[in-house]
């Protein structure tokens, strides 16, 4: 338990190459840890929007909605995993879907461990010190991207260049998936409407 949930993720964020290797070949990662991390990210985002200090919090409290917050993190996460899996199967990636999900999830750990203390610290900051808050926030994002990069590279056994290309293509695929999704939804809606109309016509005629 402690090994899975605390020690390995913390080891991973400082030794990504070793740890992602272990994750792929030694079976060290767990999907339930990934989901827990994802939940923690959502919680820390919600906390940040709600409770970060007044000087750094520019959110309109009337428009905060934790459910939407949840969707804006969970949905892109799965979309990313799916798109990455889709594109890497075409590009000789060795990673399985589960591995992609774990790599992405474990890469989110720095966000959790930096956001929470910074939310507390930001409540004790004056305006000049908020620069530090923003610095830490950007560090957490950069760290996340770096870990994601290493993770994808290890999971698929890619070269650096190929990883960069794949990640960019993944973003493109995400766009395509969203486009197709909305297209299918609107078509489905029209088909349903069509059948409903036929039904109505028939009931009126008889």
């Amino acid at each position: 338990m402690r090994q899975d949930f605390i020690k390995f993720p913390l080891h991973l964020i400082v030794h990504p190459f070793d740890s992602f290797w272990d994750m792929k070949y030694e079976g060290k990662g767990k999907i339930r840890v990934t989901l827990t991390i994802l939940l923690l990210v959502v919680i820390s985002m919600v906390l940040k929007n709600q409770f970060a200090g007044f000087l750094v919090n520019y959110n309109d409290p009337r428009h905060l909605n934790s459910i939407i917050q949840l969707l804006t993190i969970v949905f892109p996460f799965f979309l990313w995993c799916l798109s990455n899996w889709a594109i890497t199967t075409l590009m000789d990636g060795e990673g399985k879907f589960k591995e992609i999900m774990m790599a992405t999830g474990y890469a989110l750990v720095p966000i959790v461990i930096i956001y929470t203390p910074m939310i507390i610290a930001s409540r004790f900051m004056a305006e000049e010190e908020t620069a530090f808050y923003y610095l830490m926030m950007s560090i957490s994002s950069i760290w996340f991207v770096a870990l994601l990069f290493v993770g994808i590279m290890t999971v698929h056994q890619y070269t650096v260049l190929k990883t960069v290309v794949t990640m960019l293509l993944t973003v493109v695929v995400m766009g395509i998936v969203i486009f197709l999704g909305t297209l299918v939804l609107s078509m489905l809606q029209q088909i349903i409407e069509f059948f409903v109309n036929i039904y109505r016509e028939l009931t009126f005629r008889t």
Partner: protein
Amino acid sequence: MIAKKWLPAVMAASLLLCYAAPAPASAESTPYESYNYNYWEEAVPAPAAYVPDRTLSGKDLGVGDFLDPGDMVVAASGLIYIADSGNGRIICLDSDWKVNKVISGFDNKGKAEKFKNPSGLYVNQEGNLFIADTDNGRIVVLSPEGDLLRMIEQPKSDILPADFKFIPVKVTVDQAERVYVIAKGIFEGIMQFDKNGDFIGYVGTNKVKRDYTEYLWRLLSTKAQKAQMALFVPTEFSNIDVDSKGFLYATNIDPGSKEPIKRLNPSGEDVLKRFGYFDVKGDIRFRISIGPSKFTDIKVLANGMYSALDANQGKVFTYNDEGDLLYVYGGKGNQVGTFKIPAAIEFSGGNQLVLDRGKGNIVIFKPTRFGTSVNQAVGYHYNGEDTRAVPVWKEVLKLNSNYDIAYIGIGKSLLMDKSNKEALKYFKLGMDRDGYSVAFKRYRREVMQEHFGTFLTVIMILVSGWLAFRLLRFWRRKRLSGRSRQASQNLKEGKAHEAGFH
């Protein structure tokens, strides 16, 4: 049983009290909706700051209808001058709205001369009247008695083109008796004349904005197409006023501009303070079909406040010296208090006057309790009397609890009084992050100074506790390991014994 008896009595009494309560202070109805913008740039309803009191047309004054009146000015003496442009005359009213005199011409060395479409007026400290006699192409300066003092005609200068035609529209004079003129077809800025009427130069040129799509089009089009395109010329100024320190307030009608109001220092730089949440440009939110505010006149009031007249929607926007929008009133329409083509705004004895060119009348607006309180509080704040402003701001908050500037004003006063914790609360309510930061820093230092001893003690206790814990664990482990070593030794000895080596 007793309760049942006196319950109806209480109910009746409360009902009576309810009806006996005085009518709300702003019971006067307005034909327009008053609002102000909150921090999130949403227009939020607000109590009216000014309500229309009455209108005055030329017929009411007994001088015949106004025809396209172009400008209006209030002198220091309280006299009100109206440029009745279409009729080519200047009408002078006293402060009781009685006609003092009608100036329809002047005596130029024995020759009687008339005005032709005079559309700009100004009265300086001595009461001399400056008239932009537009279609005659000259500025006429008359003494308070109506005698001709001098004229400024077609200026001659190397920087003016040979075919230049002087068509003055608006005129203003500063303390140093320099004359500022907005002339038709002049894009270089405001024309500046010295005491003797000689042309000095331009001040405050509007900058031309580069539009990148336009630039791209220009790159792709042929020479013939380019010739057909609109030229990039700076916009003209629409009106000017001068404040007590000699700074020029100028408005322009550049549609996309974020800075339609400028405060120009003597060297022509824009020094308007824009510390509010949003740009000093009238409406922040507007319908695309109506478009942004288009200012035709500006009037500097007391205590650094200024009112700008938006001809597009017939609204008057009043700002304080820091660029916070204080209140908005007016609108387009046919009722009393709404305008057709508003042309000029003035301030006289606490009332605001708006000259409507379309209807040919003057609307007199008088301040409500809310408006008076805001003006008063802004005045106190401007003069540094923040403690006196606080009760007035509280009064304002009673009338409009969404008034951010009042919260900030109270916060600033509390900050002066070193009650930092309360100041924090007010700054947060007013969404003033800069003020909040200052108050917070002081409050934090205060708390630290007060509790530094306790803070250190707690840290010391924690550190020593942790050290003690580590030591304890270390000893216990040592003892345990010592015992286990002994045990294993015993075991070994026992085993050896069992094996029968002894």
